[in-house]
């Protein structure tokens, strides 16, 4: 059952991601992004990462994309004034390079056995919290410094008078 579900949600995630970059209207892109994020959350569930899956839905699909949509609606560019994107040689080369990268990774992934599925409770809130405050304590603390820097930076750039 698991491989089938993996294939299904993996395909939805990739298809959604392709739609995000190819849609003309930013609103359509944002909605497809939600689809991708949801199916990635499903993939997390398949790998026993339940906490991560919940966070993925709440924070990314819930909060961040909603912010995207707010901004798109506030700017509100009319349909006929959206920039026209042409297929240039560089873009074509970019698509080919991305395709090659995916192909290579896929071929390599088939040749090497992945680590076995993690234990059933390794993705619970308790286990993640425990890891976060023991082995990954420093990473946790640096992240707080990083977020502080981002907040100060955003205010510095956006505030009328500093």
């Amino acid at each position, binding site marked *: 059952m698991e491989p089938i579900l993996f294939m299904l949600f993996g395909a939805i995630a990739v298809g959604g991601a392709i739609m995000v970059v190819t849609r003309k209207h930013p609103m359509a892109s944002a909605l497809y992004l939600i689809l991708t994020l949801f199916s990635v959350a499903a993939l997390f569930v398949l790998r026993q990462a339940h906490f991560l899956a919940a966070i993925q839905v709440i924070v990314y699909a819930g909060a961040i994309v909603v912010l995207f949509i707010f901004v798109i609606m506030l700017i509100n560019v009319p349909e006929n004034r959206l920039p026209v994107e042409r297929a240039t040689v560089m873009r074509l080369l970019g698509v080919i390079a991305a395709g090659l990268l995916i192909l290579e990774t896929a071929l390599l992934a088939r040749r*090497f056995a992945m680590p076995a599925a993690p234990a059933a409770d390794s993705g619970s809130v308790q286990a993640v919290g425990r890891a976060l405050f023991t082995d990954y304590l*420093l*990473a946790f603390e640096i992240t707080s*410094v990083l977020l*502080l*820097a981002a907040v*100060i930076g955003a*205010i510095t*750039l956006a505030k009328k008078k*500093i």
Partner: protein
Amino acid sequence: MAPIAIDAQALLQSTYSILPEILVVATALFVLFVDLILPEENKRVLCGVSIIGVALSLFAVFSMGPARISGFSGAVVHDGLGAFFEIVILSACALTLLMATGYSEWEGTHKGEFYSLLLLSTSGMMFMAKGTDLMTVFLGLETLSIPIYVLVGFHRNRMSSIEGALKYFLLGAFASGFLLYGIALIYAVSGTTKIPQLAAMLLDASLAGNPMFLAGAGLLLVGLAFKVSLVPFHMWTPDAYEGAPTLVTAFMSAAVKAAAFAALIRFLLLALPGMQPAMGKILWILAVLTMTVGNLSALRQDNVKRMLAYSSIAHAGYILVGMVSGDVLGGQASLFYLLVYAFMNIGAFGVVMLIAQKEDEGYDIGNFAGIGFRYPVLGALLTLFLVSLGGIPPTAGFIGKFYLFSAAVKNGYIGLAVIGVLNSAVSIYYYLRLVVYMYMMPAGAEAPAPRPPRVAFSLALCASAAVVLVLGILPRSVLEFAERSVLSLLM
């Protein structure tokens, strides 16, 4: 589950291992608080507070010594290599802050945010230099990058500043993606992100030659190559360096490069033997491309800031020459050159800052005509820094390049050394072109006088000049320190 038993001893040791970083972050927070209560005309105090914080942190690094202190279950280690890079990064930060005493007055960057962002970025660099876990390296990289994006765009009313910041931000976010993808692939095949464990797995052949691991390492290299602006990942560099406030350009070119190279050296010296010959070839090509493209593009620039931006790309190539073989000799040469480069490049930017006066059009090479005889001290200082960047004796730049290229020759990369020396010869043309303008061109009719530097600014320039000269004549002690630092990594 049972509650977590707290090992107070381990926690104390862990905290001690990141003492210099804690001091820098604490200073950044303190600056923000002081900024709130300080009246508008006394903002200069913030600069002083920041300098004191950096000095304390530098003192902590020296007093901790080169002894190996690991902390946070192997996420970070204070060793010789970490200490060396912390000294480079903190010196670059201190020089920048000393110059800020004058620069901030002219350009209106006397803001609490400016100093705290600078300090937060410095702390990220230090974490990156000491990180033995790829996760720490990644978080350090982000902590250093985000404040720098903002600092590049700090002049919110100048189009070039905003343009540079936006380009840097977009491409930087993309490069972070590469880095993360690389770390994910490496974790997928090895089940660990700890660099020493990865190196051990490479040596006992359980990971050596694994194509998936190589793909991950390649993507990791792309992410770091972006930050040190190796060709072909350098597209953002000229615009970001030109648009940023000159003080920030000086800081970026020296400190960001040092931090990213620190992570690269830590990873490559330990892991490269297990990835030869594939990785060595890639590094060889990157080094040659970076040196050549950087120098050839710098030849055609009439804007001094842009010229120095391309020259900094070329210098990343020279530094990479030392890493191609992944041995102690090359690593030592790279470390020495990074230290020298920080002082000579910030020094050069400092003098240029005084002469140019205005952002953007002030940096046209015509504005430097006749400076040499009218202002002999400034002219002499800039000439010294340019000569050192070009690699002419008796400056430290010459010694640095000499060790880089002789390490390459000793390891059998003779072609690489020849290309490096040829590039170095090309670079002398554009460095000396500026010297020719200063001494042999008549000054324009309404050429404005350079700004008079403040005492702290002069101190920074004198310190840089002293380092460039002293290390050019007596490099032994620092070279030995660099060697011990590299050896401490391999132990």
